[in-house]
């Protein structure tokens, strides 16, 4: 089967430091892959090459079977790769639907030549996507700052989905959330998976990863040190891979 995203021998150096060394991984549609590793293992650098923040020094990226050069974040967005950062990338002073449409505002004409924001359209469309994902938010007109962490996460996810994400990269999606909210976000991940979206989750919370991921990729010191299907492994083995207590051949 054709992969949604395929990374082949990606390498990234910062001066003398090899942050990512010859890493390959792939992900299919509707698959959730957990990307694990200790701080400094190179997960974020790897992801940033996919989201267009960094440019690889070596290797290739294939998206839907075609080689792509992701030279900017805009390029990544335009082909359907959306990244949710830890700090969510939401403007807290704007309301939910304005955030969903931020940078891609829907306009309407008044007096035939003046373009103004089409609030009703953006509100309606946002409501639709939230309903589709079964997300409940009291009012889409509320500023983000009055929403809970989980609701904010949901808004950020809805935004990616609305803009037709094929691949969603989530960096620590549950880090700042309460227990109940973590659960909701994980449910949302499964919901997205069922709609055929590929998801890469970076997380330190093994429990979270084990509850949603199909497959795990483990990195250490810039290298991929293991890849496991979720049913063939257990948290203990994964931890030892992360910290390097056990030498395992790939």
């Amino acid at each position, binding site marked *: 089967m054709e992969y949604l995203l395929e990374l082949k021998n990606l390498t990234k150096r910062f001066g003398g430091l090899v942050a990512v060394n010859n890493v390959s991984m792939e992900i299919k549609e509707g698959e959730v892959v957990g990307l694990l590793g200790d701080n400094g293992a190179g997960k974020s650098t790897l992801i940033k090459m996919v989201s267009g923040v960094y440019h690889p020094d070596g290797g290739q990226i294939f998206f839907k079977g075609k080689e792509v050069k992701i030279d900017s*974040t805009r390029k990544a967005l335009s082909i359907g790769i959306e990244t949710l950062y830890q700090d969510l990338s*939401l*403007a*807290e002073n*704007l309301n939910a639907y*304005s955030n969903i449409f931020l*940078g891609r505002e829907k306009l309407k004409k008044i007096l035939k030549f003046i*373009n103004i*924001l089409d609030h009703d359209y953006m509100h309606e469309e946002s409501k639709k996507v939230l309903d589709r994902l079964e997300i409940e938010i009291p009012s889409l*007109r509320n500023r983000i700052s009055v929403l809970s962490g989980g609701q904010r996460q949901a808004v950020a996810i809805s935004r990616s989905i609305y803009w037709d994400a094929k691949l969603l990269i989530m960096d620590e999606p549950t880090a700042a959330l309460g227990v109940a909210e973590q659960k909701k976000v994980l449910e949302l991940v499964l919901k997205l998976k069922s709609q055929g979206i590929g998801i890469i989750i970076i997380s330190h919370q093994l429990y979270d990863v084990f509850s949603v991921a199909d497959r795990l990729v483990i990195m250490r010191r810039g290298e991929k040190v293991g890849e496991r299907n979720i049913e063939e492994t257990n948290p203990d083995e994964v931890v030892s891979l992360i910290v390097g207590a056990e030498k395992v051949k790939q």
Partner: protein
Amino acid sequence: MDNITIKKNGLHGLLLQLGNKWMIFFLLLEVIIFSIISPGFFSLNGIQTILNNSPSILLLALAETFVIITGGIDLSVGFVMGFSSVISAKLIVTFVGLGMNDALSIIIGIVITLCIGIIPGFLNGILIGRYKVPPLIATFSMLGITHGISELLIEGSYAKNLPKLAGKIGNGNLINIVPGKTVSFFVSPAIQRGERLIEILPNMFVIAFIFIIFFAFILKSTKFGQHTYAIGGNVDAAIRAGIDVKNHIIKIYMLSSLFATIAGIIYMLRFVTGKADSGMVFLLDSIVAVVIGGASFYGGFGSVWKTVIGCFIILLLENGLRMLGFPTFYKLVLVGIILIFAVLIDQFSPELLHKED
């Protein structure tokens, strides 16, 4: 949602309701108090005086509204205003000296001044948007530069010998009525001894107000306005959403200088002179007006109409105190106190104050 409803009760609830509208009540309170203790305050003359004084602070505060919403500040507006008053006066005098007629000299002088006046803003924007110089430093430098150049141009004095027509436009009113005789627009009719002239709405106020209406609309209803708020709210989010933040910041500081330039031109027309420090006193006033209007120095909040209310709070205070015979210094003290008061409200206001757009 639950905690929101709970907090709406009691004193806290009252403050919450009052919170983002306190400036309206404050303005009404001023009107009532000054009307009672100072007869003539709430008369056509009293109102005309306030409106005559309003263009500078309105335009500079409009400039600061856009800048402060992005999380910046523009300290140069006062001296860009002075700079423009000097440049426009110098140009017009030069054109008249070359034998051009008065009206044409004024029009061409103004157009060229508008082009020159946005240069300080362009430089501010480049420094702040592209080279990440803190707004305070960039605009403070520009304050010095524009002040210095203006003083050099007028050699420490002020620009003079402007044609009389400039003053006629600058001090004219939209509606001029000689009771029982004529009604004229824009320019006062000649009156005979014993006749009374009723003037309504100063031309310069009308011009400033047209800008206010237009840019209030831009800020509230357009993509440009939305991006301005987004940059102030979370600049990283704005960048990741694909907004060209660098260019937007440049445009914001150019707008700021544009408004200051218009204020300078209005000053030149009204006082028929160009003065390097003509806008100095309005810097504090305009920033205070914006903060009274609910803007936060952290960026992301503010509105043109609330800024306008902030401006009138200061204008009324100024005029009221003057009519009661207090020296101007009292106004400075009170404006300072109001600024502290407004900032404290901002500091202690729960986020819920800003619950909805």
